[in-house]
Each structure stands twice: as structure tokens, then as C-alpha cells.
């Protein structure tokens, strides 16, 4: 699993990356009450806002950690947005993205680097 400074995680299987927000981000948001995930086929550049996650208080964008094309949005989150809090780095995933360049994922932080980054905040 790889991580971004915007607190997204990426897990690659072949050329498909599963993307979500980290436990740190989910805890910081608090109770998630609404999630908007992208439709399959949507083309993403790195840094594009591709999903929205909303707590009671506010709406936050989720940014594409790498470029690619959306294969699937996690439709289960519309009925059960609280999954993002319960299992942020598992069943609370947001989208699967066919990655344009798998090497882009390797360039992201690993768990140790992300933990060090969190400690610096």
C-alpha cells in the first residue's frame, strides 16, 4: 500500500489501483454521512478531484493519487457511507483506477514514510 500527503492510499493489483482515504483522514473527517464516487470510464489526471466525502460538518474533495481511468466506483458507499469510518483502508475504498503508469504508484510514500509524515504534522 502506498500513500499521499493528501491522505489517500493506493493498493495495486496488476495495473489496477484501489484507492481510498487513510484512517488518519477518516478519523479527522469524523462521521462520514455522504460519499460521491466516480463513474467507470472517467479519465483522471494526477491531482484531479475524483470523489467527494462529506461529514456532518463539511464536504471534502478526494484527489486522484495517480493518473488513469476509473474502472469502478465503490457503489456500496452510497448506501453505507459509514463504511469509510469503520474500514477506511479496506471495504471503505472509493474507486478502482486502471493506472496509466504503474511506476507512478511506486513513487508514492510507503507505510513507514507516511507514518513519519503523519508524525511531522
Amino acid at each position, binding site marked *: 500500500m502506498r500513500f499521499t500527503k493528501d491522505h489517500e492510499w493506493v493498493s495495486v493489483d496488476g495495473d489496477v489501483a484501489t484507492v481510498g482515504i487513510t484512517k488518519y483522514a477518516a478519523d479527522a473527517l*469524523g*462521521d462520514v*454521512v*455522504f460519499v*460521491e464516487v466516480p463513474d467507470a470510464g472517467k479519465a483522471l489526471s494526477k491531482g484531479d478531484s475524483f470523489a*467527494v466525502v*462529506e*461529514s*456532518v*460538518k*463539511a*464536504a471534502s474533495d478526494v484527489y486522484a493519487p495517480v493518473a488513469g481511468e476509473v474502472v469502478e466506483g465503490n457503489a456500496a458507499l452510497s448506501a453505507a457511507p459509514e463504511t469509510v469510518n469503520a474500514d477506511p483502508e479496506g471495504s471503505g475504498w472509493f474507486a478502482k483506477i486502471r493506472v496509466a503508469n504503474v511506476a507512478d504508484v511506486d513513487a508514492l510514500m510507503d507505510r513507514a514514510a507516511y507514518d513519519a509524515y503523519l508524525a511531522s504534522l
Partner: protein
Amino acid sequence: MTEATMKRTPLYAAHVALGARMVPFAGYEMPVQYEGVLAEHRWTREHAGLFDVSHMGQAKLRGAAPLASFEKLVPGDYIGLKEGKQRYSVLLSPEGGMLDDLMAGRPDGDGLYVVVNAACKDADFALIESELGAEATLERLEDRALLAIQGPEAVDVMVKHEPKLAELGFMECGVFDLFGAKCFVSRSGYTGEDGYEISIPADKAEAAWNALLADARVKAIGLGARDSLRLEAGLPLYGHDADETTSPVEAALTFALSKRRKEARDFKGAERIMAELGGAASRVRVGLSVLEGAPAREGAEIADADGKVVGKVTSGGPSPTLGRNIAMGYVPPSLSALGTRLNVIVRGKSQAAEVVATPFVAQRYFRKTATA
């Protein structure tokens, strides 16, 4: 504002000890949540929530005729306010706009006790002093904290400390010996629930806070849930749902315009306000049920059935009690009837909404008589 200049309430250390997430609000470091907004919201609706609202502005107005003096600033009947009662009102601009909303009451025979919003308090108190000049003096009660305990079990919690509080009716107030101090206590709040607001000397606040939290029915509740609770109760938040351009008629606060004052037309902005009461308002605050899609929050546009933008959402979000999205905002009176179908625009998407009655969630105030 930098952290060094942020103010703290007398309960700051207690919030930190409870693990609160502290955020800047109206110049103060305040607890936005402890365990989580949803849990805190539900706890308050089912049990009793304890809020630190010490950032709000408390003052005593004294003078030869402080009630008559105060009427120069507001459209409410304060001359007729009996000792032991309080009343909601709005501070008016010369144009009839709202400079703030407030509570003013007579817990004792000593002048008028006034509570205003934190973000407005310096301006409010300066205005009151400059308007009233030598006829009245305003003492800011900087040495007092303000707690609110709200929820269906609040009364049971409080009568353990003072049995007489059971008899206090909604919007009644008095001075009570609580937690080793003389406290101003009113049966009021801003959540839609029964409950009390307790003004207590700052040096007794933390002991009172901990004594109340020692009751298993009571949990500390942050500003996040305070906001979702007051939204469900249909209560406007000044600075969001009303501002200096908004009249009390537009803000759907006509209950704050007392009969005697309307007949006398002797308040600021009376010309505009009376014309609006007669049907001249161009907009009015309504409740909206968002029928599909994402929460519609402050700033979201409201469109009519043809897609024409007719107003804006001023507060909105999910209702934990109702399990759907609610909002308030301003629309032309012609589109304000209950059941009117409108749309809210969220991130470019049009979502169906409907004008509904407020409060969204029934208020549960303890009213002693129907005429109180």
C-alpha cells in the same frame, strides 16, 4: 488570527482533558467534538448534553429605566418583561437589519441580563453603550462562564442539584445557588430540547462542569453537534442564516416583534419592517427538505422548477434524527409555501427539494402554560 491571540474559556483545560478536538471559533479555541458529532447529537436528543458556551457575551444593563432604555435597540416588549422571565430579540440597525440576535432576561431585580453571540459581542456591547450614553451602564460579565445542559434528561440531572429548577418554565429565569455560587439560570437553550443555561462565576465553572459530567446521563457536546441540533430545531445561526441586511421579517422571526412595539412603530427600521409585515418582503427564510443527493450546505443556490436561481442555502446538512438532508435558506415569498418544489444546486448538480415546516424536529420545551 494566530494561536497566541486566541482566547480560551474557563473550561479550556477540561475540554483538552476530555480529548476534545479544539478549533478556532469567534476568536476562541472551542471544542468542535469529543467522541464524534453524530454520537453527541444523538446523546443530546436522548439524554443530556453539556455545552460550554462561555464564548458568548454576557452583560448586565443597569440604569434609571434599563428596560425602557433597551427597547431603543430592539423591537421586543421589555418594559412588560416581568422579573423571572427572559425574551429572545434582535439588535436592529437603523435600516431594520439584524446586527445580532440575543436573549435578555430578568433573573433578579438588578437591571437586565443580556446574552449575545460571541462573534458580535464587542460590536454589540459598544453599540448598546454608545446608543444609551449616560442613561444606562453596561457591565460586561467577563468573569462568568456559561454552560448549557440540553436534552430530555437535563431536568432530572439539574433537580438533583436544585429541586426548584423543576418548576422553572421555558424562558423563565432566576438566581439559584448551584455548585457553591450564585448562578443565573434560565430554562432555555438552542437545541430544541428542554434544558437550562447556567451563568456561573468563572472560578467555579470547571467544578460545575465536572460535577454535571459525573452524572452518567450527561456527556460533553461540542459545537459540531450544537450546530446540527439547532439546524434540526429550525433555529437560525446569526452570521449564516441572518446578517445585517436581513430583517427579522425576512428571517422568519416575527415572533420577536412584540405587539405593543408594532402598534407604536417605535423601533429602528420600523418603516421597512412594518412594510414587510404587510407583504413587501422580497425574500423569506424557509426550511427545505433535500429529497435526493448530497447535503446542500451554506452557499448552495436554490432554483425554481424552471431552473432559475431564486435564492441561496444559508445552513444545511444531514439531519441525524431524521436520516435525511435538511437546509434553510432564502426564497421569494411566492415560493415559500409549504410543499413548494424547488431545486438545490450542489457541485453543479440540481437536486430536488421541497419547502417544509420548521422546526424539522419537534421542539420539546417545558412550557408551563399555553399563554406563557
